[in-house]
């Protein structure tokens, strides 16, 4: 507005004295015009000012959060380029009635100290690694794999060393299982601590017009077993192919059922033509009663079919080379601090240098778990085992599992 006034004054002063009357009239008209413009501008400015004030008022009503904020998220979030780092210590004391195996009995040991690392690599993938140390000064690279998300057809791929999705128990980390030791069928066929292998696998949730959920995984991993396993031969260069189909349904809001089928095909010798077929079925029924109160019934069975080149055994004892084993688990979470359960085991050993290869190992296991907090857990376990050689073995385990840092469990 001021500028407009100055402009008008300037124009008035600029009028030459000898200007003619006509010019003056024209100028007067111009001044009138300009004044009108100035007034219309002023009203516009006034109304806008009023609108701004109104908006401010409504804005303040809408957002009563005081400014400035005491702490913005940007200042309190740690820099996220450092990977998630966690450690899990697994301390086990074991008492065994057996006199035959002097090595792993009656001792307290740090069975494992797991160092867990993980982070997103880029917008498409994530790297996870687990390095396990034990008190025999051994280091084991349990996992080191890249997960590639969002591949065509909604598939997710894993590449590297990982726990293959064979059945229900093999893919689960040791610190997440319900008992101190793996079920016998897992120990004897896949390895004392389960099995981790280098390979590639693809997982996809199927898009079917059903209320149930179906997820399929197919993979290729290096051959062989975990330590102590006997399902496959020791040759790591002949790969094992595997597939898993998970079928899941919510029966009610609090009850659900899962049925899985797995198949793994590998070699049991250096010769590629000798095949081991492992077929597995797993079933899990879960019922949640309330917060921290849950019942779980889980069972899993594996059938092993081995074709041998030279049948060094009497063909009548086990002509087809079929073996099977399984377990049934009943687990109850009683409260936020207590849990208990029971496991039944049966497994036919692949080791044929036995008096009666059709006779399996039978185990009855009970356990009680105390959760001191979310990150510290104590467990007592008692096992009564009928070994294939006819002897009976009683084992007592005491276990403490303690976690520090960041350690997120993968969804199973």
């Amino acid at each position, binding site marked *: 507005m001021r500028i407009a006034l100055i402009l008008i004054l300037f124009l008035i002063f600029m009028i030459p004295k000898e200007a003619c009357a006509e010019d003056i009239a024209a100028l007067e008209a111009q001044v009138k015009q300009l004044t009108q413009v100035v007034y219309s501008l002023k009203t516009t400015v006034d109304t806008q000012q009023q609108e701004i004030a109104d908006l401010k008022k409504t804005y303040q009503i*809408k957002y009563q959060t005081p400014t400035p904020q005491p702490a913005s998220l940007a200042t309190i979030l740690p820099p996220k380029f450092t990977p998630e780092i966690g450690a899990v210590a697994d301390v086990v004391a074991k008492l065994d009635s057996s006199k035959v195996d002097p090595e792993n009995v009656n001792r307290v040991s740090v069975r494992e100290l797991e160092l867990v690392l993980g982070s997103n690599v880029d*917008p498409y993938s*994530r790297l996870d690694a687990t390095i396990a140390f034990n008190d025999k000064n051994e280091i084991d690279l349990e996992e080191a794999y890249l997960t590639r998300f969002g591949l065509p057809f909604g598939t997710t791929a894993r590449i590297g060393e990982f726990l293959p999705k064979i059945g229900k128990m093999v893919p689960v980390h040791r610190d997440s299982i319900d008992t101190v030791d793996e079920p016998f069928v897992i120990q004897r066929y896949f390895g004392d601590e389960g099995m981790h292998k280098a390979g590639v696998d693809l997982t996809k949730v199927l898009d079917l017009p059903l209320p149930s959920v179906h997820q399929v995984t197919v993979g290729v991993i290096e051959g062989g077993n975990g330590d102590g396993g006997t399902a496959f031969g020791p040759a790591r260069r002949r790969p094992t192919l595997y597939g898993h189909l998970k079928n899941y349904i919510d029966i009610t809001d609090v009850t659900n059922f899962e049925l899985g089928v797995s198949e793994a095909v590998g070699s049991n010798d250096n010769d590629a033509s000798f095949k081991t*077929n492992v077929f597995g079925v797993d079933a899990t029924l879960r019922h949640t009663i309330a917060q921290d109160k849950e019942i779980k019934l889980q069972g899993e069975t594996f059938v092993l079919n081995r074709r041998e080149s030279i049948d060094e055994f009497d063909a009548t004892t086990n002509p087809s080379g079929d073996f099977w084993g399984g377990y049934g688990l009943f687990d109850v979470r009683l*409260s936020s601090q207590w849990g208990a359960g029971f496991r039944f085991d049966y497994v036919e050993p692949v080791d044929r240098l036995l008096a009666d290869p059709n006779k399996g190992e039978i185990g009855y296991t009970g356990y009680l778990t105390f959760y001191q907090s979310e*990150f510290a857990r104590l467990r007592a376990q008692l096992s009564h085992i009928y070994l294939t050689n006819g002897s009976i073995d009683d084992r007592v385990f005491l276990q403490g599992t303690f976690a520090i840092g960041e350690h997120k469990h993968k969804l199973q």
Partner: protein
Amino acid sequence: MFKLKYLIRKSTVITLLSCVALSTVPCHAGENPLKVVATQTMYSSVVKEIGKDRVDVKYVAPPKFNVHFIQPKPTDVRNITKADLYVDAGLDLEAWSDSLLEAAGKPEFFRGREKNVDMSKGIRLLEVPDHQLSRAEGDIHIYGNPHYNMNPENVKIMAENVLEKLKSIDPANASYYEANEKAFISRLNEKITEWKKLCANCAGQEILSYHKDIAYFADFLGLKAEQYIEPKPGIPPTPKHLEFLEEYVKANHIKAIVMPTYYPKDAAEVLAKRVGAKVVTICQNIGELPGTDDIFSFFDYNFNQISEALK
């Protein structure tokens, strides 16, 4: 026996192949509602208020359980693989959320990514730690208290967060979402005035809470909450701590012990009996109790409960 196994093997392979074949059949196209998965009922409710019939919303955490400790199910994984948008609490309230998104293989829903709505954005956080944290302090909230759903003023900020994202991924319906949000906010403003009036008796009084999940509720009503039944977040009460609380409640004339439905009630009830206080249910989740099924009835219930208890 071998033949049988061979057959089983064959049938497994056929099953797997047919499943893969079925899954590649293209999905129905056309004017479908936007598919949204929210971590909790509060967020699914906010999305529904703004998206109305143009959104199809599902939630992960069942409202009768503690949202800190949820075990997501394969059904949630499947819902996420089909979704267009994911809404979560941000911060460290839902520690299970990252694993869920990884299992679904949807990196576009990860924190900070284009199809993730972080409801904590713009919320004035309370109890932000001012020192280096340690787990010796319990299972604490590392970024500040994440239970911000308990203050209806914060619902307005959440609505703004949802509106912004819905507009950006579905610009064709922007004006529809805007109109719904405006109507929702004005109704909420009316209710807030009503709730403040109802709870005028609460201001300045002190309450005892089970978990450190009441700060925003207390802030809204001008309540004081400084002690908890849990000696440290996530740690169950000890006899020694309960003894201390007995003295504390008496000395400070505390009338109400507040807690949601999913924590064990025994310790609070014993304490309440000894000191002559009341145990009051204050829901943390929409739908935690019958009759708390939407945003308004949820806050109605909570504010009625507290104002009644502190009379």
